[in-house]
Every structure is written in C-alpha cells, then in structure tokens.
C-alpha cells in the first residue's frame, strides 16, 4: 500500500474520527517528523494534513495545548464520501499503512520491521498487510 501526502481535500466527504493521540511528543522524534512533513513550524493551525492511502483519504488534525510544543496531539479521521458508512476492515488496513509510513519516516531506531513484528506478536496486523 502506498501512503502519499496530498493537499487537495476531496469534495463531498465527511470526517469520521478514528483515533486521537493527545501526546505525539511523548517520543519527540514522532512530532518532529509530523512538523517536517506537514510544514507545521510555519503553519500551525492551518488546514489538516492529508494522506492518500491507495485512493482513500485521511486527515490529520493537529491539536495544540497550552504550555506544550505544537502539535501536542493529533486526531486521525477518515474522509468518507457523502453519507456512506465507514468500511472498518479497509480502515484498519489503511491505518496500518499509515503507521508503517509514520515509523519509516521517523527512522532509526524505529523500524517498519519492528512494527510488523509487534503487530504479529499482538495479532493486530491486518491480513495481507
């Protein structure tokens, strides 16, 4: 699966929240990667970041918190057409692809292979991922 940053928000979609992490700076290299990827140093409370995962689009809504470096947190939401229901299996596949994209972007000592092994240990890695 391919994860690509895009800038055009698809028309006619609604935002479906999937998960929230209030503390992306717990390991600072993760928030550093998000800042660099989405130009957050210059544009803090701008439009959400957008990721295309094989045609499915997800938005990253960055959250500020008083006294904390920006972004303090992030909410990931699926952009779903119209009033169509969310496909939970597809979403799990796509979220896993986003996790791999994130960990690969953060880089050593974090690795996609370690993430996949963690997923296998806890049996949370989607089939075919």
């Amino acid at each position: 699966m391919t994860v690509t940053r895009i800038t055009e928000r698809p028309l006619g979609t609604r935002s479906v929240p999937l998960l929230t992490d209030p503390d992306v700076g717990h390991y600072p290299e993760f928030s550093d990667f998000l800042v660099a990827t989405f130009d957050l140093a210059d544009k803090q409370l701008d439009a959400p970041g957008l990721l295309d995962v094989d045609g499915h689009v997800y938005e990253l809504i960055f959250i500020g918190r008083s006294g904390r470096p920006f972004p303090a947190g992030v909410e990931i939401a699926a952009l779903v057409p119209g009033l169509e229901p969310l496909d939970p299996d597809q979403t799990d596949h796509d979220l896993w692809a986003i996790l791999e994209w994130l960990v690969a972007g953060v880089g050593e000592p974090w690795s996609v292979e370690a993430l996949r092994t963690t997923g296998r240990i806890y049996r949370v890695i989607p089939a075919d991922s």
Partner: protein
Amino acid sequence: MTTIARTINDLGPHVSIRYPFRSKFVNVNGWRMHYIDEGPPNAPPVLLLHGNPTWGYLWRDTIPPLLAAGYRVIVPDQIGFGLSEHPHSASAHSLDNHASNLVALLDQLDLNGVFFVCHDWGGPTGLAALLTRRQRATAVAVMSTWAWRTPASEFHRQILPWRLMQAPIVGPHIMARQGAFPGRGIYLSVVDRERYRRDALPAYEAVLPDPDDRRLTWQWPRSIPIDPSTDITGERFEWLEAGLRELNIPATIIWGREDDVFALDVMGVRWHDIWPHAEGPHLVTGKHFLQEDSGAEIGQLLVEFAARHLPIPEHG
C-alpha cells in the same frame, strides 16, 4: 442526573460466579470508583491493588484465603479500569492523580492498620498513597512492580515490542482500537494460557468494551520512566524511592518464577536493597500476571505473613 453504574452482577454469571462480591462505589477526586469490601468491618484491612490493564477480578483467587482467615479485604478498581469510571481526559491519568485517588479511598473508608498489597501499577500508585498516609499503614507486599526512576526493567527499555506498542499514534491504534491490552497482552504474560482464555479473558474484555475505555492501557505505559526525553514521572519516582527507603514496616516480596517483564534477578534484588528487612522473595508459578496462575497460593502466603504482623482480634 442519575448515573447508572455497572456492577459485578451486570457482567453476567461468568464473572459473578468467580468474583461473587457486592459492588460498592465511592467518589474519589470527582471520579466514580468501584470497589469491594468484604469480611468483618473491624478486622485488619487488606488492600489489594491491581495495575494495567486489569481490575479487582485479578485478585479473585487471592481473596478467599484472606477472608477465611478473618481479614477484611478491600479491592478497588483503579479509575480508568474495571467498573470504575473511565475518564477520557489524558490529564486525569497522571500518576499523581491515580495515587491521590487511592489516598481519597483510604480517607473516605477511614482505613487504619492497612496491609497494602501492590501489583504492577498498584505499586507506584499504592505506595505513593501509603507514603502520603503513612499513619494508616501496617504492612506491605509487592509483586511484579517497581518504585524507582531508573532502570524500570530491560523489557521496558526495548523498542520491540514495548516502546513501539505505546508510541505516538501507534499506541492508540494497537492498544485501544485493536485491544491488544487486555487481550493478547495478558495472554502472553500468564503460564496457563488456556485457563486464562477460558476463565479470565472475558472478564477483562467485558469492562473495557470500547477503544475509548482502553485509554489508560496505552497512557500508563508512557508514565514509566525510561529516558530523560520521555520522562514525565521521574521526580515522583525519586520521591517514592526515597520515602520507601525510610519506611520501616513489615514487608514481603512475592514474585512469579517465570516473570519476564519484571525479572526477579533484577527486581527482587532492588526491593531487598530498598527494604533489607523484607521477607522473600516467595516464588510462585507465574509470569507478570502471577495471580492468574497462583492466586490462591498468593492468598495463603499473604495470610501467613499477615498472621505474624496483623493479628486478628480475638473477639473481632
């Protein structure tokens, strides 16, 4: 507005047969805390404290020997777990707030002469509460837990799997959306996995049904001091260790022989360094969740220890 809280009986016979106690609730720091309080009210109280991601049910086989010996047994569900309230605010789940919740419990039940029994996060929270209400404590037992800034354990230093499974964005997905804790996480840390799957897993999953309920399963791991860049609790752990070194009450150490999360050869030595007078370590069959494999044996060890230090009043 009236809040209808779930009780043990609401979880069905699978749970209530194995945990046949009456649900009680107390307000701590504005949160609804579930607990059980069994045995004679004037008997020495034994406070059993669980950690992540369990609830009072963890102690189900440990409780009967203590009750049979005549003790009063109090088992709270930490806020965020079990049948207690599950706050969705990250700030609710600081180590200090959780420790204070137990201080509030001690105060509201006006418990004195307490035998603190601490497992996992029941250690840092319960021992911090003990130091805050030192006058209420008579004895202490620790099992598969810690109370110092560093090193936590080798397991917690490793990226694979521990640091990865609670890393930013990864943690909320693996541990909350996918429910790795309590499911697979406990399963891998017990010896008799088939018995755990049959007797216990449904009880742990039933109280954390939705991803938002599982917030603390990934947030608490982030409170373990690992290195300066991520350390949000270091000063509290330094205070904790210093206070415990000055604590001179009867203590006992109980550990699982197969514990690969808090390895005995490191942790047992460290506890004896803090409390040279402590008994043990008494070894039982078990990994990190040793109560799942040896709950009744642990109960008997606690009874034997308590009999020497918390005698039951003859006419109690």
